């Protein structure tokens, strides 16, 4: 009997909370061969948004995972390329700058990075000795490794010490460097060029013993975007000249603007000096498979079920590409997170008295709008619910003649309704549901929707699962949980989806310096899209995107540019090329899509469908201006779209506690 809650397995969705050894835990993406960080003889820039699993990806390539004791055997060829992960304390490294230390910053930064990586080399050898490597002679030679003679002098040691003990010395110097930074008078306690000394150390010490004689060491610097510009420039210079046996790689948030300058006049250039791996793109193609595997591997670990394959093992990727296997795992996850088809959703809608009443009202209002005396009941047929729903919105469109519509309906004109259903059914369902704040639409439930809502973002996906299981645990005794019949009902999922969506909006305030501004933008945009979703005619169904009408945000509009970029960096808005110009005047280059994870809270669509064009003034009212100006814009749209029930509560409630009860 497992005493922990199942939900906690899904709560641990942050790579750093996992150990450094992630063998058996990390699910390799199916197209991993193209992205293997250890297979490339130049540097790599790893880009990914928040929650894209950057740190996990980097750690997969590092020595704690490569030397994992969970591996049955460590093979010799696995020693050809070994990674070392380093995430600086960026508040601390911000002190090691020109600003604080003048010209001393460079020697101090070299010391900080050098000592940290030397210390990692010491741990690397210790881990190697403890690994399941079969060649005893090699292990013994690693045990005997000692620091070179000139290091004795550099580190002020009496005797030469073993590499395995070198970590303690490095930590001592890191501490001394810290003391010096507190009172930065004179020179730092230790001075050496990190890149040169590391190369020297690798060549004269590590590569001398047989197991490592051909090894290339890869240093992965995480959170590169948070380093100071001069520090980035220094590391770029190392990247420019990176080659075996020492290659530097960097990882940073997508859309972040980092410098490509080096210490010389040259810049580092894509293809020539490095390649880029965009993690979201890497996951995008096979995200449904990856997501199924991640969810099942978590459930397997909880239920102590033997997994089909070790998902961290590159040798097994081929087997994971088989259709039979993929269909099987997808079906298993779909059983856990079932969904309703659109037809079934409509059936549920008709069963719910309040929702059905809303449908009737919509038809009556539509007939009034058309000044038609026809009986509203004629437009409803319980055997043709989808068509009835479509009737309700069509009656609010100017170009519709109620008599002609009725004729098509009575004649059961399938071809008339076919496209209308395809294009308007989801919008119509959401329209009915937006009338009731306490009802969440079952449309948002199911594994396929989770994939859509999370958009290749692993953190969002796991949070959707986590919240669903929390809700499930509240109502079920875990003693009866079995993996075979484990399935989360639709209504639990929809509640969980709304909770997740709301929680993600709450958390925007924590994203960087401008978090509160970003949160405000999401709420304001979401409310406008929600307003559009309430349009009875649904003539512009499923609006969740915008373009900027006849202008572009550029550096002349500092605040606008900054906020748009922050929205991109934090994955709040997705920017795409505007390929669907609506009119000749629509010359906007970019299309901005609100991340679908926010859609359930606002009751809007998660599909990339329609957009609104914002004027510069409207953009400013949403992104920058005070609430009064925004409210005027909201009211303007409310009138223009003839919304009968705009959101009465114009204020977003950050009180999540009450919102969720």
């Amino acid at each position, binding site marked *: 009997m497992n005493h922990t809650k199942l939900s906690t397995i899904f*709560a641990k969705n*942050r*790579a*750093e*909370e996992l150990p450094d050894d992630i063998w058996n835990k990390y699910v390799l993406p199916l197209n991993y061969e193209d992205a293997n960080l250890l297979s490339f003889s130049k540097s790599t820039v790893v880009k990914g948004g928040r929650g894209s699993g950057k*740190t996990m990806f980097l750690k997969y390539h590092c020595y704690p995972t490569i030397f994992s004791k969970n591996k049955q055997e460590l093979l010799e060829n696995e020693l050809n390329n070994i990674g070392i*992960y*380093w*995430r*600086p*304390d960026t*508040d*601390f490294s*911000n*002190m090691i700058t020109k*600003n*604080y230390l003048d010209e001393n910053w460079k020697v101090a930064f070299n010391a*900080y990075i050098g000592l*940290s*990586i030397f*210390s*990692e080399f010491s741990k690397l050898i210790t881990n190697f000795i403890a690994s399941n490597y079969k060649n005893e002679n090699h292990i013994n030679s690693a045990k005997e490794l000692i620091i070179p003679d000139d290091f004795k002098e550099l580190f002020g040691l009496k005797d030469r010490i073993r590499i395995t003990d070198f970590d303690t010395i490095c*930590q001592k110097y*890191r501490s001394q460097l*810290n003391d010096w*930074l*507190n*009172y*930065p*008078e004179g020179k730092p306690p230790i001075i050496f060029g990190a890149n040169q000394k590391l190369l020297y150390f690798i060549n004269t010490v590590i590569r001398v013993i047989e197991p490592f004689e051909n090894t290339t060491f890869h240093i992965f610097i*995480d959170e590169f975007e948070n380093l100071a510009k001069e520090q980035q420039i220094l590391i770029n210079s190392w990247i420019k000249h990176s080659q075996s046996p020492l290659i530097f790689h960097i990882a940073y948030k997508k859309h972040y603007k980092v410098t490509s300058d080096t210490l010389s006049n040259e810049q580092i250039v894509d293809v020539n000096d490095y390649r880029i791996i965009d993690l979201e793109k890497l996951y995008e193609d096979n995200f449904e498979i990856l997501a199924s595997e991640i969810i099942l591997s978590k459930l397997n670990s909880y239920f102590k079920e033997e997994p089909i394959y070790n998902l961290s093992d590159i040798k097994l990727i081929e087997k994971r590409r088989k259709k039979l296997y993929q269909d099987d795992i997808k079906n298993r996850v779909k059983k856990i997170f079932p969904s309703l088809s659109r037809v079934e959703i409509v059936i549920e809608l008709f069963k719910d008295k309040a929702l059905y009443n809303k449908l009737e009202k919509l038809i009556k209002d539509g007939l009034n709008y058309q000044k038609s005396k026809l009986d509203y009941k004629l437009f409803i047929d319980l055997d043709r619910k989808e068509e009835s729903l479509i009737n309700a919105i069509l009656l609010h469109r100017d170009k519709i003649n109620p008599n002609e519509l009725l004729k098509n309906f009575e004649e059961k004109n399938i071809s008339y309704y076919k496209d209308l259903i395809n294009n308007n059914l989801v919008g119509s369902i959401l329209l009915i549901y937006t009338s009731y704040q306490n009802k969440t639409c079952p449309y948002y439930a199911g594994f396929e929707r989770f994939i859509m809502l999370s958009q290749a973002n692993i953190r969002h996906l796991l949070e959707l699962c986590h919240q669903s299981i929390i809700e499930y645990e509240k109502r079920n005794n875990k003693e009866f949980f079995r993996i075979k019949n484990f399935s989360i009902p639709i209504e639990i999922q929809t509640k969980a989806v709304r909770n997740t969506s709301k*929680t993600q909006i*709450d*958390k925007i*305030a*924590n*994203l*960087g*310096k*401008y*978090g*509160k501004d970003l*949160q*405000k933008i999401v*709420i*304001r945009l979401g*409310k406008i899209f929600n307003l559009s979703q309430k349009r009875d005619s649904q003539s512009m169904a499923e609006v969740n995107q915008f373009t900027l009408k006849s202008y572009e945000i550029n550096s002349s509009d500092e605040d606008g540019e900054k906020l748009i970029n922050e929205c991109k960096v934090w994955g709040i808005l997705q920017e795409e090329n505007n390929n669907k110009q609506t009119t000749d005047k629509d010359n906007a280059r970019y299309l901005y899509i609100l991340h679908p994870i926010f859609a359930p809270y606002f009751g809007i669509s998660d599909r990339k469908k329609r957009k609104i064009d914002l004027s510069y003034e409207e953009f400013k009212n949403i992104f920058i201006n*005070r*609430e*009064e100006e*925004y409210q005027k814009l909201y009211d303007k749209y409310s009138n223009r779209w003839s919304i009968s029930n705009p959101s009465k509560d*114009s*204020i*977003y*409630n*950050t*009180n*999540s*506690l009450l919102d969720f009860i």
Partner: protein
Amino acid sequence: MSLEITHIYSYSQLDEISIENKNAILFYGESLDNRSDEVFSYYSNIISNKYKITYDENKFELIINGDTKIRHHLFGENFIETLSFQNYYIDATSLGFAEILLILHNLNKLKSLRSIKIVYAEPKKYKKDKSTPFKDDFDLTKVLGNFNKIPPYLLPIDSNSPSKAILIPCLGFENNRLGRIMESDDGARYEKYIPILGLPAFNPSWENISLRRHHQELKNITDIKFSPANNPYETYQVLDDIYKNNFRKTLVLAPIGTKPHGIGAIIFLINKDEEGIKIGLTYDFPKKKENRTDGIGKIYEYTCKIIKYERG
């Protein structure tokens, strides 16, 4: 040497406070609201020697009376040590966390015994923000700064550190200040959080605002400590208890709650530093809004003395 809070006096009016004007000096900061104006005007009428101190967190220097700039590590030698007074008054209403920390850090190094009085006036109420869509937002901060360290209280915790640390945040009204730390840390540096909530708060029920606003951040936290929002002495004791119960663990303070909590944290940092124990500090340097509070509430005078530290 170490600092000790010997008395806490509470007043309902400024003119109830008697000030020693002989051999006295006042340190004060940027005034942002009418309560800091009132405190400054009352004290500066009696104390003629006064210095306005501000700290530039980007240049790591202190600015005296708006013009003289001193690097943080020379602030003691080139400024505090050149003063020769008996009664030191620190206006914590207008001074920021970093300024109070660096003033006290350097006063504590002075050889002869001094009297230090820290004055703090509570606000009567905080203003609500009407310019945002958020229902219960207070209008306290223009923009949050970077989480810079404040030397000499540096302590790096990175992927190469031998262990992760425990973060001790003091909770105020602005949950995104803690949320930001959690989000950017992402589990990399902190293995545990032990927040301190101001209880009792300045006003009855204000603790509920703080709790409600931190609902999201506190979700998975089981260990919350309490200390009166106006009492640095108690805060010091709470911190010391946390320290004793987490022996050998690295602690990092995030003084993002009330000013008296911040003062308790400052004295704790200074005393531990004197004992050779490294405690980390992280602070976000919010740019406070002008006139963010209305009126003046209770006024406190915290009397400190410097005691000679006996190494055991």
